[in-house]
């Protein structure tokens, strides 16, 4: 890899969130506001970044090979309801809560993967069915009370920016190694670029799918832990109510894909999550209503997808314009 390419990679990877930060800071300043005014702002930014990153990573493992896992929202909630209540009842601390939730999350997603493999149905159908089952379980466990840590200040450690970023950093390092320097990662990327060819060349697609499901459950459980620690409770949810959370991760996934071309996909997703968290923080400075936020996010996503889909045309048009001028 030549130096120019490395420099360009770093510039794009760091440049996108940096540019977002500068633009949004200017917007705030122009209106007499500060983007980061207090430590509380920073804590909210960290929470949103970590939650969105974990969700986006978890979705992306299966999405890159064409599987959309609708059950991740339910896994995120159920894993922390089980893991959290276990840790609370055993009088354990935040680290144990995170570990228990990760184990439960891994097992739950592993079950989704096994069901998908055994029944050989479309992933959408399988994961929708699994979502309904897991949501029902959130209602059946602990008398439908979910998990509640209000008054148990020991668990607020999870939202401590240092703790949250450490766990997030460990996840990122593991993902970068796993997807770039192991057989599992090579296979996953090969399958992403052409399933039929990969399978014919000897890659075991089902084994890889199981691995992706398992990994997604472990990663998404940390999003649940962060939500629990920040909100103080996680309620049981029914009627496919857990699915909406998945859609908040779309913008960082697509941004991550774009940035990933210049560096690494998982790092790109983290950078995409930073951008969306900066956007959320900016919305809050203006107390924008949720409906307005969603419209802006949807328009931003649409514009970005239009750009990605027509990138070559747009770039060649820009080149032509530059030459002409």
């Amino acid at each position, binding site marked *: 890899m030549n130096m120019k390419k490395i420099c360009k990679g770093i510039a794009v990877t760091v440049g996108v969130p940096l540019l977002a930060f500068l633009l949004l800071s200017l917007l705030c300043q122009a209106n007499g506001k500060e983007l980061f005014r207090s430590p*509380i702002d920073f804590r909210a930014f960290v929470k949103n970044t970590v939650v969105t990153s974990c969700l986006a990573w978890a979705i992306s493992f299966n999405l890159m090979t064409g599987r959309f896992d609708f059950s991740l929202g339910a896994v995120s909630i159920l894993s922390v309801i089980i893991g959290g209540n276990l840790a609370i009842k055993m009088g354990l601390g935040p680290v144990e809560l995170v570990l228990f939730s990760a184990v439960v999350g891994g097992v739950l997603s592993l079950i989704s993967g096994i069901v998908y493999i055994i029944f050989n149905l479309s992933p959408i159908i399988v994961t929708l069915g699994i979502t309904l089952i897991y949501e029902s379980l959130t209602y059946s466990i602990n008398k439908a009370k979910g998990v509640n840590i209000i008054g148990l*200040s020991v668990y607020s450690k999870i939202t401590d920016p240092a703790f949250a970023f450490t766990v997030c950093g460990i996840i990122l390092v593991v993902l970068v190694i796993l997807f770039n320097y192991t057989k599992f990662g090579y296979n996953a990327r090969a399958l992403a670029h052409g399933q039929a060819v990969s399978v014919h060349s000897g890659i075991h697609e089902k084994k890889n799918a199981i691995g992706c499901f398992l990994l997604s459950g472990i990663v998404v459980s940390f999003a649940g832990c962060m939500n629990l620690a920040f909100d103080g409770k996680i309620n049981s949810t029914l009627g496919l109510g857990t699915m909406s959370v998945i859609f908040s991760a779309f913008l960082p996934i697509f941004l991550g894909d774009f940035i990933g071309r210049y560096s690494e996909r998982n790092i790109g997703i983290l950078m995409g999550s930073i951008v969306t968290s900066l956007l959320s923080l900016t919305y809050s400075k203006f107390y924008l*209503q949720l409906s307005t936020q969603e419209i802006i996010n949807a328009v931003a996503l649409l514009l970005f997808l239009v750009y990605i889909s027509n990138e070559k045309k747009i770039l060649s048009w820009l080149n032509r314009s530059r030459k002409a001028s």
Partner: protein
Amino acid sequence: MKKLVSVFLLLAMMLTAIVAPAVADVQKPNVKLGVAVYNLTDAEVMAFRAYYEDYLAPEFGVTLIYSEAIEDHEQEISFIENCAAQGAKGIISFVSYGNVDTAKKCKDYGMYYIIAATAISDEEFAALAPNEYFLGTMGPNAIEGEQAAAQAMAEFFKGQGYTRFFVAAGDDLAFDMFANRRLGCAKVVGGDNVTGYPELAEGVEFANYYRGFSIDASVKSQALSDAEVILATFGGVENWAAPIEMAGMTGKVHLGTIASFGDMYYTAFNAEPAQIEFLAGKYSSVIGPAFAAIYNAATGYVELARGPQNEAFRINQGYWFATSKDEFNEMYNLANNVGGVYAYAAEDLKQVCGVFNSEATYEDFMALANAWDYESCKARAED
């Protein structure tokens, strides 16, 4: 000795006859009732359900058919049809998507209909009233119930000299209940164009109204930076206690809310320092009279559930206000059957039910239903 035992037994029988409740020990008819709810996981709905299913249903020999979470009128109608197919005699509704049409559907199936724990507009009530299968509504009404609770909450904090307020307003465009709570807050602190109080009230420096049930972490952090008081028109502890504590703002940012006397609020009021300072709360057994009304209608005593002119009733049941730990704990005990007595005990309700008390009247029922306030409930429990 035998004589002594006989006298003792005789005395015991006489004493039992004297202190026994006036409620007759009768054969309870099998009655099926449908209960339509908007959510199965909401803390208030769960508390209501426990009171109905675990306590009243066995006492009255009633089988309850609970809905799934009803999110629109079609689902509501589908549930009504399902209940009719299962032989239900009445519907207690906690949802409000199209009451006139729903009540008409109930009439078609010969089922009675009552709206519990919420109030409806004058226009809607007028449209419902001619339907003889519609019994009435119970719950906090717009002005004396919802607005008054929100006003009391805002005044409580403003009276202490706080000047910066953030109002978590709920979905005030979709539900009258939240619109009225927002209006109640706006009347005291001002700064709200939507409700017609655009100017900040005297002595108020900041007021922001945020609409929606889902409040992002960033908005919460901004509110905690800008405001001294969070006026949460719903789920105060659920949404704000942890962020306030985590931000190290306990004691600096004050919390008041309209919610219910649940376990989470017990923890919050009893924390050191307290995580909440004002609660306008419902209690689970406040829906007891609605159960008695529909039970009467379903068992052939509809005259005990509709007025002398066969009119539907409209009962305003307000909130209990707790402004300190001690006040809260007293109310919590009565609200949650801690002392072995509910605010509306089964025995209280049986007194107004024709099946159990042949002398019950509509006036008795109205008097009981209107005695919802804390002092009345406390007096009843102590009797």
